[in-house]
């Protein structure tokens, strides 16, 4: 454990300074210091994806990423997925497909899928499943989530 000190991080395009132990998991800084509660605690062990956020465009588990590790990088949370006040296309297709029941897994799914579509805009069904295999959903919304992701591709469905 290290003493609390000022840590600077850039989240959804805005620079923030928080005072905390730099080993604090990014998830707690987002949820408790920055008020960005979209990313969720599910396991704290990197095994469920509920806490996923993007760091320089790549999905990471914010539950086991210390906040010092994102210094100088761009962090994107579900709250920052949209742009110009408009929701991300995935946020629309998730509602259209009712791609959730409880929605606790949703933020992690959305950011992971957003990174996937950036990387592979014409990904297919199997590719979506592969990319989301580390994101757990207990409500059984999987097929709807896959449909929502496919529907958000630039080419549509």
């Amino acid at each position, binding site marked *: 454990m290290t003493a609390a000190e000022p840590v600077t991080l850039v989240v959804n395009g805005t620079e923030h300074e928080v005072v905390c132990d730099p080993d604090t998991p990014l998830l707690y800084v987002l949820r408790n210091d920055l008020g960005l509660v*979209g990313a969720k605690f599910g396991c704290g062990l990197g095994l469920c994806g509920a806490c996923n956020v993007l760091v320089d465009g790549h999905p990471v588990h914010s539950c086991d990423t210390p906040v010092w590790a994102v210094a100088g990088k761009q962090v994107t949370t579900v709250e920052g997925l949209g742009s110009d006040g408009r929701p991300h296309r995935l946020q629309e297709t998730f*509602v259209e497909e*009712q791609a*959730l*029941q*409880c929605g606790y897994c949703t933020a992690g799914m959305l950011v992971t899928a957003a990174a996937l579509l950036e990387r592979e805009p014409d990904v297919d069904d199997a590719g979506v499943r592969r990319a989301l295999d580390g994101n757990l959903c*207990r409500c059984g919304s*999987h*097929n709807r989530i896959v449909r929502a992701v496919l529907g958000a591709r630039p080419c549509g469905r």
Partner: protein
Amino acid sequence: MTNPSIQNNPRPDRWLTIRSDGVVLVRSGKVELGQGVLTALAQIVAEELDVDPSRISMVPAGTDQSPDESYTAGSMSVPHSGGALRAVCARVRALFVAEAAARLGVPAESLRVSDGAIGAPDGPGTSYWELADAVALDREIPDAVAKAPADYRIVGQDLPRLDLPDKVAGRRRFLHDLRPHGMLFGRVVRPPSRSAVLMSVDEDAARRMPGVVAVVRDGSFLGVVAEREEDALRAQAALRSACAWEEEDSLPSERDLAAFLTSAPAEETVLADTRGDGGAVAHPVRARFTRPYLAHASIAPSCGLALWDGDRLSVWSHTQGIYKLHASICRSQRLAAEQVVVQHVEGAGCYGHNAADDAAYDAVLLARAVPDRPVQVVWTREDELTWGPLGPAMVVDVEVDVDPAGQVQRWQHDVWSNGHASRPGPPGAPLLAATHVASAETALPAGDPPLQNGGGSGRNAVPLYDLPGQLVRTHRLTTMPLRTSAMRALGAHLNVYAIESVVDELAVLAGIDPVEYRLRMLTDERARAVLQAAAERAGWGDGTPGLGIGFARYKNRGAYCAVVAEVEAETHVRVRRLTIAVDVGLVVSPDGVVNQIEGGALQALSWTTKEQVRFDARTVTSRTWEDYPILTFSEVPPVDVVLLDRPDDASLGAGEASVGPTAAAIGNALYAATGLRVRALPLTPENVVAAMDD
């Protein structure tokens, strides 16, 4: 069907407030568990009152204002709360129309309601909003006729779910997300094993850690409260390593669970007995089915939030039963009912009695040490998988005698299981921490709801088929090594698996197609219709290998559901496709029903093929997603749901209907694919191999 929701809460003002600003506040005692129920109820209200759904505001349930509708469970929310709201809204509408008629000096029959405006075509008018202050709802009002389903415009349509915009935007919506002013973070150090007793703990190191506000110890209950979440977690770890526990073995052998279940002391209940003399027996069929303990395994660990303000206590919980939790807290804390308010806030998906209530009580105990500051407790993933109530392990023995002509002469079904209900509320079902404090309350072994309420261990144990000579019994254990309670579909999971497996076996013995064989034993038209619809949609009989079917009517009086599974078995059992036909009576939200049916089917697929709570002589050892794996994206097959439309029949609830039939269809498909009857769940490679040896 009697409806306890309206019987217990007859006054309309319990349910509705019609405001002069054009808003209708609706209070249901049922809670959102991720099943979309609030949207369905809003649709029913909008329909019956004739107002635009956008005017409806669903008030989250709280014991200070909501009708007491007991638990949100058993697929009864739309039947009970929806039925009550429909009746209440029909009465309220009639009352407003009568008032309008009196004021306008026209006959009530000439008036129409449209989005709350009341008037005659081309005549003068008024509205709910204008009359809101003049019509008294704080009294019982006369019955009125509800709309005919043929006139529905909103019920039966897919309305966007009310909770989705917040959830896709990541807005503060879950209990876990609340951060009331001054909130502290609480964490509990659970005992290392089931009967462990805390002998001593050195609290000093934890107390001196930065941010720690309080360490709470009461008997074997130990927790910490801190300013920051990471402080609480560090202090929790420090406390854990500063404890001395006395432990002993208290659990049966996991390897021989069936022997334990069938030999432990138990209470026998006969659910059906139509035995006659029986005739000549040509083929006896004897089969034993087992399932292990199962975990709820919600994606969020349970959470509770509590605030003590003098001798008043506020609690926020994702419980299924705000009033029951309220009663438990009042009893354990010796508080009068009016000192405590329990407010529902959404949690992650809830599939039965999970640890939500326990987490709420943890927060109550920790917050007592820091008056005037709210304390939020979040369980660890490990505690969620190990200390939450479990779905009971079960054994089902089926014995059938078939005569030389292939007719069933005798059908016997015995269930051994711990009870499936230990929900909070009554004494004897204390919240977890109340069993760890110094003045500990004792948990009685879980009970079973009576069959007329759907049963517990014996849910769906009585076959719906015309089978003569039935003897159906449950043997509910009167000792409870691991705490068990209600989990989606209760005993129906294994009971339906067993019945449908044996029926399949009989069809093969008789040389009759399994769908045809079932149809011959079913007279209920609606049962036959779902079987035929599922078979037809799945291409039954067109030569696709590895198809199996499963059928049940949930609780024998709820929704009808038939499932065809397509299975492939090489190194492990892989379900390639599920085709489901379901009849839930009147459908309020079609896509909501399909979502529930899919969700139930995929959860059943996960239980049936993968899941198993592991334990040693002292405690549960499956603590993480690595030891308790659940279905992942690459294992999820396409699920095709056919919804049979029955607008003139009562709504039956959808959350649990597909569980038993899906499990059964997978088992029967595995037989079709491999020739093996695997009767020990889950259908892991080990259990499949063991079935080969039998």
